């Protein structure tokens, strides 16, 4: 972060913002402003260059063809790699999560190269589409309360040795690998299948991104009573038998 301005980059809303993914951007923006930060939000369309000097990059979910187009354009652009080399934080959801891995299956049924920023490989699941509320325990190293979200995907994502599972699913599917993992992360790059949007359901993950971007250990408290009320309701709902 420079000039006391936090630069939040939303990658390709024209292709990857089908499931309310703007919500993650709005939550990061709002929580940064509540901490007195000056926030510059940059929405980058897929015919524009990815800036390399952002602090937090958000990339959302989308349909199969836009996902392929986004991967093609991001590979060609190369800016996100440079941003990560510069130390930027990246948070990705669903189709965006798959794009950040080594490869995924595109709308044509072919293996599509990803960006290789996360050590994961995604394939298409054989079973039913995973749709519904999810409850999971976040990796204890991150010191965060349980993960609540809504999943809607057919993908199965396998983690390589340098990616850690973001969470362990208690209810729902997550990565769909059968081992209960959900999402993946390394030092600066995060991926999850959770919609909801996930940062609205888990504001402390948004705070984690802010802390990593600002390189601080703590942030001033915020009034989170509505987030808490929503979390309690959704966690209870996930535990109800369907």
């Amino acid at each position: 972060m420079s000039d006391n301005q936090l630069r939040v980059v939303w990658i390709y809303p024209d292709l990857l913002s089908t499931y309310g993914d703007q919500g993650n951007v709005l939550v990061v923006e709002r929580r940064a402003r509540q901490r007195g930060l000056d926030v510059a939000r940059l929405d980058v369309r897929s015919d524009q260059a990815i800036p390399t000097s952002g602090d937090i990059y958000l990339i959302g979910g989308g349909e199969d063809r836009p996902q392929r187009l986004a991967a093609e354009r991001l590979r060609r652009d190369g800016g996100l790699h440079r941003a990560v080399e510069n130390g930027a934080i990246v948070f990705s959801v669903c189709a965006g999560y798959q794009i950040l891995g080594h490869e995924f299956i595109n709308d044509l049924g072919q293996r599509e190269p990803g960006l290789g920023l996360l050590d994961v490989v995604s394939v298409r699941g054989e079973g039913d589409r995973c749709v519904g509320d999810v409850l999971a325990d976040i990796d204890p190293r991150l010191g965060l309360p349980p993960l609540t979200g809504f999943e809607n995907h057919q993908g199965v994502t396998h983690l390589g040795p340098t990616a850690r599972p973001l969470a362990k699913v208690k209810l729902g599917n997550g990565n769909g690998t059968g081992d209960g993992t959900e999402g993946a992360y390394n030092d600066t790059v995060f991926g999850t299948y959770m919609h909801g949007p996930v940062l609205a359901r888990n504001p402390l993950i948004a705070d984690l991104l802010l802390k990593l971007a600002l390189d601080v250990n703590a942030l001033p408290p915020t009034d989170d009573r509505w987030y808490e009320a929503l979390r309690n309701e959704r966690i209870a709902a996930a535990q109800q038998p369907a």
Partner: protein
Amino acid sequence: MAGNSDPLTPRAKLAVTAGKAVAAASRAAGRGSGSVIGGRVALKLDPDLLARLAQNLDVTLVSATNGKTTTTRLIAEALRAAGPVVSNALGANMPAGITSALAGSSDARFGVIEVDEKYLAGVARDTDPKCIALLNLSRDQLDRAAETRMLAENWREGLAGSKAVIVANADDPLVVWAASSSPNVIWVAAGQMWKDDAWSCPSCGGVMQRPGDDWFCGECGFRRPTPSWALSGDHVLDPHGSAWPIHLQLPGRANKANAASSAAVAAVFGVPPQVALERMYQVQAVAGRYDVVQFQQRDLRLLLAKNPAGWLETFSLIDPPPTPVILSVNARGADGTDTSWLWDVDYTRLTGHPICVIGDRKLDLAVRLEVANQHFQVCDDLDQAVQLCPPGRIEVIANYTAFQDLRRRVGN
């Protein structure tokens, strides 16, 4: 076209009679109108029944993400100038409900049929329509419906080579993509406020350019067709360039757009725009939507908004601040169980309105409004929310099952 000869085979007649009997039993048991269950039974006895019922009607199909029930009413009203009309006016828009509605009338000349987006291709095959009106396509219930672009693709394949006249919105790239495989299209510049499902070219995937009201793909040349009809403020412009005033009891820009499309459909059947538009004035509330009801000394206007495009159009028609707004959202099966779409709605447009939130998912709304930096109150139910508002007009905006809950509570 009204047939004098009886088109129904004995089997079809039996199916119609059986369907009506089941519907009556369902009504008697207090399970709604019975039209869907009746239609299901009838279609089981005679799978070709829908085609048989349609064969001596001049059929118009109406499909869209938003506005199809209202537009079906407007077109039905307009075509009554030329002859009797049968229509699924209650919004039962899948094959069973449509069959049931058509079985309810034997002397109609026109059939005006609202069709669920997913069923359009099949119903078009069965009913051999003279006209198909396509209004808009946008994200809606993504947890259970097909992806929006796939729906457009499905329309496009289903309508390729159709003999019907397609009346289509030139301002919605997905609708244009769907309609442009048909040989006979009448383009209507009906406008569309929501643009976020068509930034990517439906033809080649290129990035859409959208200067002003125009749109085109910078890569493949797919572009907005030249419309022959247009909505222009409070007027409909016909292909001769004449401007006809729109007088509706229904509020909002979206309903003016629906009226413009309806006038173009009416003209296909020889009903001139001035006659069509005058008749459309008759339409008041449609299935409770836009109704103003007295409740606890307040005037509640009931507004249905099911998806981001619908909320956007609805915000543009409500009374200005300080008119209070009550928002109600559920996420039951018919609504879609994922509430993420709330984050595609721009709630900063409500700045200055006192806001109360109710419904099964009021806490999702609360977080959404908190992040939008709006002042709001979370209420237990409609009664409590209404009590917090001063006497006078209240705008009540609800999604599908929340709207049904509202109507039950206010006795509408």
